[in-house]
C-alpha cells in the first residue's frame, strides 16, 4: 500500500468518526426536541409523531439488513407483525408485563431471523429475498387463520399501554415520551453496533463480500447476524406498535407493507444512519399532511422512490450529502473528499 492511500484511509476514518459523533449529538438533540414537540399538537398529531418513531425502528432494522449487510428482506412487516402479536397476546391474554413481552418479541424475531437466514444465506444473496417473501406470506396466513390465538380478521382489541415505575402511560403525550425514550435507546444500541468492529465488518460485506471473506471476515455469520438483529428491530417496532394503536389486525403486516418498508429504507438513504428516520418521515408522516392526495399518495411515494433510485440511489440522505459537498466547494472550503 502506498503512502497517499494510507493517508487517505486515515483521513476517511477520522472524518467518519467525526460524522458518527455528530450522529450521536444529533440523536440526543433530536430526542430532546421530540420529547417536547407534541405540546399543543393535540392527540392526533402526537399519535402521528409516535407512529413515525415506531416505524423508524422497523426501518432502522431493515436498514441494517439492507444498507449495512446488503441483503434484502421482504418480511420486515411480517417481523413487526410477529412482535406486535406476541406483545398483544402476552399482555392481554396472559397478563405478562409489557417489558417482558417487549424482550420476548425481540428474542423471538431474532431467532426466527436466524432460522430463516441460515438456509437462505447458504446459497446466494437474492435467496434471502425469496425466503423472506415466502415467510411474510406465511405469517400473514397464520395471523388471519388461527382465530383461537390471533382473533383472525377481527384482530386483538384493548391492548394496554405499559406503565413506567407505577406511572400509567395511557395518555397520548405520556406514551409518546415513552416511545421517544425507547427509540433513543434502540438507536444508541444501533449506533454503537455500527461503530463497533462488528459494524465495520457489516459494511465490509456490503462493499465487497469476496474481499471481506479473503480478509478473514466470516461473511455468512456476519450477514446472518445483521439480518437477525434487523429482524429483532422489526419485532421491537411491532411490540411498540401494538400498545400505540391499541388494536391490531393482520392488515398492517402484509407483504405489500414489507415492500413499502423497504422503499422507505431506500428513500431515506440505505446505509445512512439517519436514513430510516427520513424514510419513515416520507412514508408515514408526509401522507398525513398530504391527506388530500388520499390513496394516490402510495403512487406518489413509489414514483418518488423510483425517481430517486434512478437519479440518486443513495436516497434523500445521499442527496443532502451531495448538496452539502457542492455548497462546500462553492464557498471554497475543502469538501471532505466527496465527489
Amino acid at each position, binding site marked *: 500500500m502506498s503512502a497517499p492511500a494510507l493517508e487517505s484511509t486515515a483521513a476517511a476514518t477520522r472524518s467518519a468518526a467525526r460524522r458518527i459523533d455528530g450522529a450521536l449529538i444529533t440523536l440526543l438533540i433530536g430526542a430532546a426536541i421530540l420529547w417536547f414537540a407534541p405540546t399543543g399538537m393535540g392527540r392526533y398529531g402526537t399519535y402521528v409523531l409516535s407512529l413515525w418513531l415506531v416505524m423508524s425502528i422497523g426501518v432502522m432494522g431493515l436498514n441494517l439488513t*439492507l444498507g449495512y449487510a*446488503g441483503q*434484502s428482506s421482504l418480511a420486515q412487516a411480517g417481523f413487526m407483525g410477529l412482535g406486535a402479536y406476541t406483545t398483544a397476546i402476552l399482555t392481554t391474554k396472559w397478563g405478562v408485563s409489557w417489558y417482558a413481552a417487549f424482550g420476548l418479541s425481540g428474542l423471538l424475531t431474532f431467532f426466527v431471523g436466524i432460522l430463516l437466514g441460515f*438456509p*437462505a444465506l*447458504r*446459497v*446466494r*444473496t*437474492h*435467496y434471502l*429475498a*425469496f*425466503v423472506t*417473501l*415466502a*415467510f411474510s*406470506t*406465511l405469517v400473514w*396466513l397464520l395471523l388471519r*387463520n388461527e382465530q383461537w390465538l390471533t382473533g383472525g380478521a377481527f384482530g386483538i382489541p384493548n391492548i394496554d399501554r405499559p406503565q413506567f415505575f407505577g406511572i400509567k402511560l395511557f395518555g397520548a403525550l405520556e406514551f409518546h415520551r415513552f416511545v421517544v425514550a425507547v427509540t433513543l435507546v434502540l438507536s444508541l444500541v444501533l449506533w454503537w453496533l455500527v461503530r463497533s468492529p462488528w459494524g465495520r465488518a457489516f459494511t465490509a460485506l456490503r462493499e465487497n463480500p*469476496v474481499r471481506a471473506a479473503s480478509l478473514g471476515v466470516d461473511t455468512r455469520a456476519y450477514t446472518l447476524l445483521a439480518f437477525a438483529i434487523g429482524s429483532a428491530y422489526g419485532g421491537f417496532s411491532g411490540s411498540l406498535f401494538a400498545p400505540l394503536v391499541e388494536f391490531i389486525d393482520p392488515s398492517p403486516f402484509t*407483504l*405489500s407493507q414489507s*415492500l*413499502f418498508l*423497504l*422503499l422507505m429504507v*431506500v428513500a431515506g438513504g440505505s446505509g445512512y444512519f439517519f436514513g430510516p428516520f427520513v424514510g419513515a418521515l416520507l412514508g408515514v408522516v408526509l401522507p398525513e399532511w398530504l391527506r388530500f392526495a388520499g*390513496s*394516490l399518495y*402510495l*403512487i406518489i*411515494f*413509489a*414514483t418518488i*422512490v*423510483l425517481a430517486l*433510485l*434512478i437519479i440518486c*440511489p443513495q436516497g434523500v440522505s445521499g442527496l443532502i450529502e451531495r448538496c452539502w459537498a457542492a455548497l462546500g466547494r462553492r464557498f471554497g472550503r475543502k469538501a471532505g473528499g466527496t465527489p
Partner: protein
Amino acid sequence: MAEFIAYLIAGIATGAIYALAAIGFTLVWQTSQTINFAQGEFVMLPAVLILLAVKLFGLPLWAGGLIGIAVFLLVFGAGFKLVVVDPMIKHGVLPLAIATMALSIIMKEGAKDGFSAEAQSFPSLVPTDMINILGAAISLQHVAIIVVAFAAIGLLQWFVGGTRLGRQMQATAQNPTVARILGIPVERMVLLTFLLNAALAVVASLLISPIYLAKFSNGETIGLFAFIAAIVGGFNQIRGALVGGLLIGVADSLAAAYVSTQYRMAVPLILLVAIILIKPEGLMGRKEERRV
C-alpha cells in the same frame, strides 16, 4: 378419481399460467440481471388496460384489445427497459430489484385508482361449458388455457432454439461480451427479451382474467407463484420455469382440494423452502459459479 382428474386439470391450467409468467421472469433475469418483482402486476395489467380502452373510447372488444396490448407492450416491454432498467443496471442487482418493487406498487395502485377497486368480468374467448373426460367434469376454459399456453411455450422454444434471431438472443444471455464481439446487436436482443416478456404476460393475462376476473390485486398471488416456480424449476432456463410452474399449479390445486383451503397458499411456499434447503439450484438448474 374423477374428482382428482378435475383438480389435476385445473392445477395444470393455472400452472401453465404461472409457467408463462415464470418464463418471462427467467428471460429477463438471464439477459439483464433484472429480478422483476412486478411480474405479477405485468400479468394483471393487460386485461385492465383492455377493459379501460373499451370503457374510455367505447370501442368494440377487439379494437380495445389491440390498443390495450399495444400500449402495454410499448410501456412495459420497451419503456420498462429504457426508463427503469437501463439507468439502474449500473447500480447493481439489488437497487434494480427494489425499483421493480416500486414499479409494482405504482402499477397496482394505478390500476386501483385509474380503473376500479372492484373485480371486473373479462370476456372469455372460449365457451365456458364443461366437458366430460373419463367421468370427470372439466371446464373447457381450462383445456383452452392449457392448449394456448403450451402452444405459446412451444413457439418460444422453437424461436429461441431454432431461429437465428433466437440463438442470437441466447448468446446474448449467456455471454454478452462474446456476443458483441461476434457482431450480435446485444442491445437490440435485450430489448427483444423485454418485449417477449411483455408478450408472455399479455398471453397469461388474456388466459387467466376470464376465470379470476380483472382486479388490481390479482398480481400478488400470480407474481409470488411465478417467482416460486422460477426458483423451484431452476433460475436459468425455460424448461425449469415450465416444470416449476406446472408443479406449483398442481400442488396449489390439490392442496386446496385435499389439505385446507385456508392454507392452500402455504403449500407452494413450503415447497420453495424445501427446494432452497435441498437443491438450491432448482430441479432442472445447473450450479452457478461465483464471480469475483
